[in-house]
């Protein structure tokens, strides 16, 4: 039988046994027995039976071994206290020794369930909060983007510091053509985003779309999960006839039907064939992108300088960023020469000091969120520190209570290491429990946080709790255990304990030193809490400051929605304008509706477009100044509550006339006609030779981009007006409807428009109130998160203070009783205790103010209308902290003043 090859037992279980069994020859013989019998069983009864036998026996032996440790820890306790030195017994492995301690810690913790519950819950809060925020930080900032070799991807943007344009902006076709030659790039794709309507037998729907060059997919390394990508030939056709759709659209609209490939649907006013479906994790350029169609750049130079496209590129591995930038710059510098026939364009590039900018794709996508997320992680880190300080304090109180036990252990020969190990085991048990509960909190908390998070949070779909997040949770639990366990452990290590035995009178130096440690912990806690309070205070102030900014319109009681008129059904400006008019009139007839208007884009949403203008009767050398413009229907200003300052608003007559009448903003009036009457003055879009726009009115400034950006010069042109001739009419305007309770109006609006044309999808239905709220969501999100953390910190900090003072009072009952007996008034005692609390809190305040002064600078980018060192916030929050500390001191103080001198003296 020995000749038959004998398989080794299952490695996992064998390993487990090796760990569980104490080190020694007996364990080896047991392992050997099992090994031999396993071999026999394999030969006789086959592998599966033998494996399951081995597993069963391992579990049985393991369980018995564990029970024996439990018994031994009792035995060990007995031995320790019966005068035998606590020696390491023969055959005990480090591991079993340590496990015994853990078991012992567990049992002693279970004897005080209240204490254990408080610590575990506090820890779970701290650890859970950290796990939640870390999960978000990891998924959004740290994980690679879901593209092949995502680190090689870059976004190429434009910058023209010398021109009056936004800081960074997109590119146009000619840059794509030029950059194709850059040796540092492997591939390059151009894309633009838009909204469009998908229509088939199931109805019409407005969706986000992307128009991309065929190499766009190649650059991102994306492949469809079904079908194929459009070929270059298909893209070259005059009208791109094939599209790729997102898996979301595929599932929602086509029921994940695999025969969707080859189906023809109307996309953006044309019949097009679906050739492929992209994977679920392909969410580019926008999260909502549902349709991609391709085009090739057959460049005739007719649309240079549109800058409405975006460039994505894959960089050659190991390429230096500076070198790449140099290559791109060289290529871009060729443009003025190539398009010398377009002097304004050339002037823009040269005088504007045009330069390309390269951002790693991830930075481009998550850039804005980086700062708030790191701040959030720092914040919950603070909370965890406070939690640790708190738990350390509780821990020390408990250790005080166990002094005698520990001292006896020390006296009987337990070494310093042994005692520290004992403390750490207890800390470890607590932290593990806290960690497990914290992980549970995180599992619940991550979805909760996502509900709170801004809809526009990039990569929000990728956020999920995974192994790394849980490892992180385990890691911080362990760190926490060391942090709060080690301090008391060192304070109570053997030497000091023996000192304590020798000199157990109150007020001994060791006792005072311990008190000092605990006081320091309270001071640190208060300090950290104040930092968080000040931070959240600043954000709350910014929030209010932003909310009290006058956006220039009255956001209450306005419903807005968009609809889009297809070219096929509504050709020509007349037809479109007529239909818009019909809608407006229909809506005005609805009950409760006060007024109806329309605009190309409502404020705080898509933003107005900027354009260079020429002013009549003004010198026109140099760059044309930029004016932001939009189109409006009559009654827009009235409906939005935008006040007319001078002249009049646009009226129905302005729509019908071909005289280009325009209304401008106060800032535009002030910029171009300072101290003059702008009414009757004329301007035109640079290069437009078809006619001038005449100013007929001035309206108040409207914040168009966001609440914190100062208003720019703005012009409002009529929907139709001069556009009648060139058919450039707004086809997807946003209607604004003023009515009480605008939310209740939605179904009536749908019905009304359905009556006029049942095939038109209505989208972007929101109240203006919602739009305003969304525009401050990044701040709101950070503010709420920080405020919650600060509240937690404040509560934990005051509980810490309360705990310390309570303990002090209980220790000094005798002394206080003596004072009272000797004639001290109870008020005096009250003052004494409160004063001690206030002293500690005061020190914490000083520390916190110093810390906050350094750290609030990090918030700068989020603040509005307040400085990082805002005196009022610092003072106000310090006051809050002080009041809470007073309260936390008052309760123990009252207890102290109520001490009965007689009974306290008898206690001794």
């Amino acid at each position: 039988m020995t000749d038959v090859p004998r398989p080794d037992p299952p490695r996992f279980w064998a390993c487990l046994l090796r760990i569980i069994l104490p080190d020694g020859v007996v364990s080896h013989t047991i392992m050997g027995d099992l090994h031999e019998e396993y071999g026999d069983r394999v030969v006789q009864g086959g592998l599966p039976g033998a494996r399951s036998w081995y597993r069963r026996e391992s579990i049985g032996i393991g369980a018995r071994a564990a029970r024996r440790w439990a018994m031994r820890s009792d035995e060990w306790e007995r031995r320790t206290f019966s005068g035998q030195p606590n020696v390491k017994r023969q055959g005990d492995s480090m591991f079993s020794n340590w496990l015994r301690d853990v078991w012992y810690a567990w049992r002693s913790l279970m004897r005080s369930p209240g204490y254990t519950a408080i610590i575990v819950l506090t820890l779970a809060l701290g650890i859970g909060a950290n796990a939640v925020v870390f999960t978000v930080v990891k998924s959004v900032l740290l994980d690679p983007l879901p593209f092949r070799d995502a680190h090689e991807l870059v976004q190429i943007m434009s910058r023209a510091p010398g021109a009056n344009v936004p800081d960074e902006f997109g590119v146009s076709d000619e840059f794509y053509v030029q950059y194709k030659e850059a040796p540092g790039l492997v591939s390059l794709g151009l894309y633009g985003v838009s909204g469009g309507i998908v229509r088939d037998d199931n109805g019409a729907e407005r969706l986000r779309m992307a128009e991309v060059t065929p190499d766009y997919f190649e650059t991102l390394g994306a492949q469809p999960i079904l079908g194929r990508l459009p070929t270059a030939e298909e893209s070259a056709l005059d009208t791109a006839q094939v599209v790729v759709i997102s898996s979301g659209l595929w599932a929602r609209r086509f029921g994940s039907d695999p025969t969707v490939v080859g189906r023809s649907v109307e996309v953006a006013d044309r019949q097009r064939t679906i050739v492929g479906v992209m994977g679920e994790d392909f969410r580019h350029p926008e999260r909502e992108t549902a349709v991609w169609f391709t085009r090739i750049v057959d460049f005739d130079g007719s649309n240079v300088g549109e800058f409405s496209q975006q460039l994505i590129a894959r960089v050659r591995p190991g390429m230096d960023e500076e070198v790449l930038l140099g290559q791109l710059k060289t290529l871009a510098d060729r443009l003025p020469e190539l398009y010398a026939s377009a002097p304004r364009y050339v002037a823009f590039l040269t005088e504007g000091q045009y330069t390309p900018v390269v951002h790693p794709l991830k930075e481009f996508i998550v850039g804005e969120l980086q700062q708030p997320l790191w701040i959030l992680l720092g914040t919950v880190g603070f909370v965890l520190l406070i939690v640790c300080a708190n738990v350390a304090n509780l821990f020390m109180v408990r250790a005080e209570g166990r002094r005698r036990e520990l001292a006896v252990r020390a006296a009987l020969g337990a070494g310093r290491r042994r005692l520290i190990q004992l403390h750490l085991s207890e800390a470890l048990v607590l932290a593990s429990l806290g960690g497990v509960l914290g992980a549970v909190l995180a599992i619940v908390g991550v979805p909760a946080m996502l509900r709170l998070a801004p809809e526009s949070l990039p990569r929000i779909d990728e956020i999920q709790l995974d192994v790394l997040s849980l490892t992180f949770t385990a890691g911080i639990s362990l760190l926490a255990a060391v942090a709060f366990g080690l301090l008391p452990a060192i304070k109570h290590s053997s030497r000091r304990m023996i000192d304590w035995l020798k000199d157990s009178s109150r007020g001994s130096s060791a006792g005072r030193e311990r008190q000092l440690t605990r006081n320091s912990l309270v001071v640190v806690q208060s300090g950290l809490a104040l930092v968080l309070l000040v931070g959240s205070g600043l954000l709350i102030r910014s929030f209010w400051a932003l909310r009290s900014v006058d956006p220039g319109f009255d956001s209450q009681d306005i419903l807005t929605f968009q609809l889009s008129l297809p070219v096929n059904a509504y050709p020509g400006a007349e037809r479109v304008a007529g239909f818009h008019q019909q809608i407006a009139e229909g809506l005005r007839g609805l009950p409760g509706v006060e007024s109806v208007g329309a605009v190309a884009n409502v404020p705080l949403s898509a933003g107005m477009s900027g354009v260079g203008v020429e002013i009549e009767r003004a010198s026109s050398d140099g760059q044309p100044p930029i004016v932001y413009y939009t189109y409006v229907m009559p009654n827009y200003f009235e409906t939005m509550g935008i006040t007319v300052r001078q002249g009049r608003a646009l009226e129905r007559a302005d729509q019908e006339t071909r005289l280009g009448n325009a209304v401008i903003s106060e800032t535009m009036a002030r910029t171009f006609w300072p101290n003059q009457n702008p009414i009757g003055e004329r301007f035109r879009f640079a290069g437009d030779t078809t006619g001038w726009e005449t100013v007929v009115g001035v309206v108040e400034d409207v914040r168009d981009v966001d609440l914190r950006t100062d208003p720019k010069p703005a012009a409002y042109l009529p929907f139709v007006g001069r556009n009648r001739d060139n058919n450039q009419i707004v086809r997807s305007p946003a209607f604004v409807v003023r009515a009480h309770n605008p939310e209740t109006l939605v179904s009536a609006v749908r019905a009304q428009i359905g009556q006029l044309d049942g095939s038109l999808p209505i989208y972007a239905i929101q109240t203006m109130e919602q739009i305003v709220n969304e525009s401050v969501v990044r701040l709101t999100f950070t503010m709420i998160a920080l405020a919650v953390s600060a509240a937690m910190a404040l509560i934990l900090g005051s509980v810490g203070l309360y705990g310390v003072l309570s303990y002090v009072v209980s220790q000094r009952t005798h002394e206080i009783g003596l004072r009272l007996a000797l004639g001290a008034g109870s008020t005096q005692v009250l003052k004494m205790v409160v004063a001690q609390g206030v002293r500690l809190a005061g020190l914490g305040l000083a520390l916190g103010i110093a810390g906050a002064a350094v750290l609030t600078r990090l918030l700068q980018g989020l603040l509005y209308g307040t400085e990082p060192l805002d005196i009022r916030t610092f003072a106000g929050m310090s006051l809050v902290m002080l009041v809470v500390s007073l309260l936390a001191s008052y309760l123990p103080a009252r207890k102290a003043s109520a001490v009965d001198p007689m009974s306290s003296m008898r206690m001794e």
Partner: protein
Amino acid sequence: MEKSFLGEFEQMVLLAILQLEQSAYGHRISAELEERAGRRVSRGALYSSLDRLERKGYLRWEIAPATSERGGQPKRRFEVTAEGLQVLRVSHQAWLSMKAGLEDLLSRQRP
């Protein structure tokens, strides 16, 4: 005296070791118990009993060299001590006197 009490299973283990003579290894003991008494025993329970009997002084063991089919692990060969034999005799005697007169009842086959 506490030591003089032997559990039923402990008796079985001691008897199995005596039966096996020179080859009383852990693995064989369990096989013997199963063969003769139809007693399946988990290895954990067996080793606990062996340890307990050793602590009481009824058993001793010595290490036999490792073999390849044991994954290179050594063997323990068990031996019943004189004390162990003595306590077995006491138990056996007690058993005999308890069952005296009950032979018929005890040996009757169940229908």
